[in-house]
Structures are given as structure tokens and as C-alpha cells.
């Protein structure tokens, strides 16, 4: 699915967190969003997914403006997201988390006619579980999963809803170097197999330059640059505002 953002603006108490942002994400693309802390990256995701309502602008999903739709409606149209801090249902097992997600997706969440899970839900949950590689921990409660597995479960919940556009907010946050690469390889694999429009926020520049086919740089709520990894690497404004600062810091 094609995602097009036009002149999107959102202020919080006079601060423009997202300031006239226009970006296009072609169907089936794998894009990274980078930028310093507080650049508005997560806010940008919140505006696309409908967690926040934008002040003005357009969010076009295959040319249809979804700005006025609720997050549930947007989810039904195919926008899925995973969160910066892994967001799952902590008292339930991995399998139960995914069965819950597929049940909701099938529109059976208010069903009172039978016991949970509804027929067929377990199989669908197991498919997703196998797809992301969580089968080994199927019966482990989410709150005692490793950090990396919690992040995977969060992504798996999003995948269980069969999204066409997937927003991943720092899928490798809080992981060690090896784990980061394993994670991002999985993300890449699921992008290839599911033919999603995938947008992810990432701080690790090595990962971004290696994995993303196009990169958008946000800074203080504005688009600082967009282009291929090579273009971004050599963009003076980006180096000054972001990459340079990072190199100095390390």
C-alpha cells in the first residue's frame, strides 16, 4: 500500500512537534526514519497510526485520506504498528497474545457464544508465531520473555492483523549489537516475504545504511533530507545536524 503524507502538522502547547512534513512511501518499500532525539519520529508514527489526531495535513493511504479515521479504523485499513517499548499483554502467554490478536482481527472480540479461543484462531496464531520464530516460547508468559522476544512478540501482534503498512518504532531498541542484527534480519525477512510497506525508526546508523533502501531524516519536526543511503551519508545538512554530532560523541 502506498502511503503519502502531505503538509502534516501537529503542535503540543505551542511546540510544533511535526511541522509541515510531506513524505511519500511507495508500496512495498523499506524505509528508515532517522533523526536526533525529540525530532518527532514517534509523533510522526502516532499521527499515521491515529494515536494522535493531526492539526492539519493529509495522510493518504492509496490516495484515500485517512486523517479523520480512528486508530481502529486505520488498523482495519491495513496500518499496523509495533512500539518503542514492547507492547503486548503481559499476563498472557505468547500463544495467547497472538490468539487474542487474531480473534480481535477476525472481529470476534465481543463474542460470548463460546469459549476462547474461537475455532481456527489457534492455528492462525501458531502460523504467525512460527513466522517470527517464537514457537519455542509459545507457552511462556509475555512478562517473563527476554527483551528481544518481547519486541518480536510486539511485531508478531502487529503481523497477526495482516497489515499492508507496518510501522516499527525502534525494533532494535535496548538490544546488544549481535541481537540487533538478528532482529533486523528478521524484520527484513518478513518485509520480503509479506511484501509490506515497512517504515522503521532506528538509531543505529550501520543498520540503517545497510538495510533501508531509502532514508528520511527528521529534525525538530521538519524533513531535513530524504534519499538513498549514499545520498544521506553525503548530505552536508544531515552530517551537520545529526551524523556529525554522533561521530563526535563516539
Amino acid at each position, binding site marked *: 500500500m502506498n502511503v503519502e503524507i502531505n503538509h502534516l502538522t501537529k503542535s503540543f502547547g505551542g511546540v510544533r512537534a511535526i511541522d509541515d512534513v510531506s513524505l511519500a512511501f511507495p508500496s512495498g518499500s523499506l524505509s528508515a526514519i532517522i533523526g536526533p532525539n525529540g525530532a518527532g519520529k514517534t509523533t510522526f508514527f502516532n499521527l499515521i*497510526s491515529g*494515536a494522535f489526531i493531526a492539526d492539519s495535513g493529509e495522510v493518504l493511504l492509496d490516495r484515500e485520506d485517512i486523517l479523520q479515521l480512528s*486508530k*481502529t479504523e486505520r*488498523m*482495519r485499513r491495513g496500518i499496523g*504498528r509495533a*512500539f518503542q517499548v514492547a*507492547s*503486548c*499483554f*503481559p*499476563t*498472557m502467554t505468547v500463544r*495467547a497474545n497472538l490468539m*487474542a*490478536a487474531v*480473534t*480481535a*482481527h477476525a*472481529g*470476534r*472480540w*465481543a*463474542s*460470548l*457464544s*463460546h*469459549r*476462547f*479461543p*474461537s475455532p481456527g484462531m489457534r492455528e492462525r496464531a501458531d502460523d504467525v508465531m512460527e513466522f517470527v520464530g517464537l514457537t519455542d516460547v509459545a507457552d511462556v508468559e509475555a512478562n517473563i520473555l527476554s527483551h528481544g522476544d518481547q519486541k518480536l512478540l510486539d511485531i508478531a*501482534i502487529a503481523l*497477526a*492483523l495482516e497489515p499492508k503498512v507496518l510501522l516499527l518504532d525502534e525494533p532494535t531498541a535496548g538490544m546488544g549489537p549481535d541481537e540487533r542484527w538478528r532482529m533486523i534480519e528478521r524484520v527484513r525477512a518478513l518485509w520480503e516475504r509479506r511484501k509490506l510497506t515497512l517504515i522503521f525508526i532506528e538509531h543505529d546508523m550501520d543498520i540503517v545504511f545497510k538495510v533501508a533502501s531509502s532514508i528520511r531524516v527528521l529534525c525538530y519536526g521538519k524533513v531535513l533530507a530524504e534519499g538513498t543511503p549514499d545520498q544521506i551519508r553525503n548530505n552536508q545538512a544531515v552530517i551537520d545536524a545529526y551524523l556529525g554530532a554522533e561521530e563526535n560523541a563516539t
Partner: protein
Amino acid sequence: MKRNPASRDALFAAIVLILLLAIPILHRSPAFEDFIIRLSAMALFATSLNLLVGTTGMVSFGHGMFYGFGAYAFGLTMQLTELSLPVAALFAVALTTIAALVVGAICVRLSTDYFAFITLAVQMLFFSVIVSWQSLTGGDQGLRGGIPRRHIFGFDLGSQLHLYQFCAIVAVLGLLALRHVSMSPFGNTLRMIRDNAERASFVGIVLWRARLLAFTIAGGFAGMGGVLAALFVSGAYPELADWPNSGQAIFAVMLGGINSFLGPVLGAMILLALNDLVQRFTEYHGLVLGVVILAFALGLRRGVLDFIHLVWSKRAR
């Protein structure tokens, strides 16, 4: 192959019911029968509240209004109409359910703190209406004139034994129905909301609708408890709908355990037994009750059944 969990629960309920019905045949004890009658009302009341508190994470301080509503609706229907007792009981439960839907529509969209406050406020409003609408409700004297005792299916509810049997059957069936709700996809949805409302809404659950449905169902079952209470006291009193009564249900839930389905039933049992016991020795029963609850809250940090579950699962590991 494991036994189907639904039939396992039904079997458990059947065994409990048979035991309850068998006891008076073997040995008549008015005190015991009295206890079970009161427990049946309280168990439905507390367990329905726990659908909100433990399962959904909505702390309602006004659940007593539906208990009182059920009692008054039933008492008034019996006095003012010629409906038979089971029809009047069903009618009272239906009315209470509608009342819960209306109250819920106002309350459930509010955040946790304000939800607790407004449920309490609506309850106080309802209580005031009961007390001041003397011509209908009898005001603070309660609904007098008793409930016409009619025979149903060979039951004569004027006899304590028959009332005992009737209450046991209604309570066990009611609890079984609540168990079904809690184990249905909808019950699971409520646990998702309790665990992570934000995530739940991002998988497509319309939070306010789920909460409203839970509130409505819980109100209906509290009304069913109220019907039994009205049968026991043969009338209805404003105290049934007063806020301390909501507090009793919350105590029962907290004492017994919010994460076990039968926790509130056990809590109601403990609470009733404590009330009876303590009242025999001192008039300051509130003081003793408070100490016991403090001991549970600070000592176990959870209800009895939740504590047993915890110890059990630790041992199993």
C-alpha cells in the same frame, strides 16, 4: 485428550449444587441454610463486581446500586403486578441490566479515577432517590408489606428449606454463566484491556464498547444477587443500594482474590462468616474487619485464593 474445560466447569458446578442440595436432607441446620442463602446473593454480587475489577481493571465503587436496584425492581414487581415469581425475577434482572447500560454509558468513557468517582456519585444519587421517593419505595423504612410468597415449580419460598434450594440453584447457575462470560473471547478481550488498553485498541478493540458491555453484564448479575437478597429479607431496604454495601463487595473481592474466578465467592464467605462471628462478641465489628483486611493487604498482598495459586505454582516449579 484433556477434558473440555467448559464441561469440566459444568461438572464442578453440578457437584457443588448436588452437595448443597444434599446437606439439608442429611442434616438440617437453620444457621447453615441461612448462611448459604445470604452467601448466594453476596457471591453473585461480588463475582459480578470482579468481572469489572479483576478481569477488566475497572474499579467501580457503585456496584451496590445494581444490587439494590435488583432488589427493589423485584420487590416492587411482585407487589404491584400479578407476575409469577420467576418471571418477576427475570424482569427485575432485565430492568437492572438496562439500568446498568444507561449508567455505564455515562461512566465507562472516563479514566480510571473518575470512573471510580462517578460510579460512587451515581450510586449516591440512586440511594437518595430511593430514600426520598417514599410513595413508591417506602423511603428509609424500606419496601414494606413483604414479597408475596408464591409457589413455583413446587417450591414454597416461604419455607426456609425451599428458599435455600432456590437460592443455591440460582447462584450456582448464575456463577456458571459468569464463568462462561469470563472464559469467552469477550472475557479474554477484557483481560487484554486490563493488561494493555493501548495495545488492545491497536488490535481493533473498541474500548468503550467492551467496557460498556462488561459493565452491563456485571450490573445484570448484581441485580440477580439483589433479587435473592430481596427474597431473603422479604422486601428491600435502602441499605442494599448504599455505598457501604458496594464497599462490602469490594472487600469480598479483595479478600478472596481478584485473579481467581472463585476468589470473590471465597471472599464473600470469609466476610459473612467474620461479620457473624465478630458481631457476636463486639459491636465494633468494623474495627475487627478493618484489621483483618489490613492483615491481608499488608501480609499476603493479595487475596486468599490468589495467594494459594501463587504458592501452588511456585511449588510446582
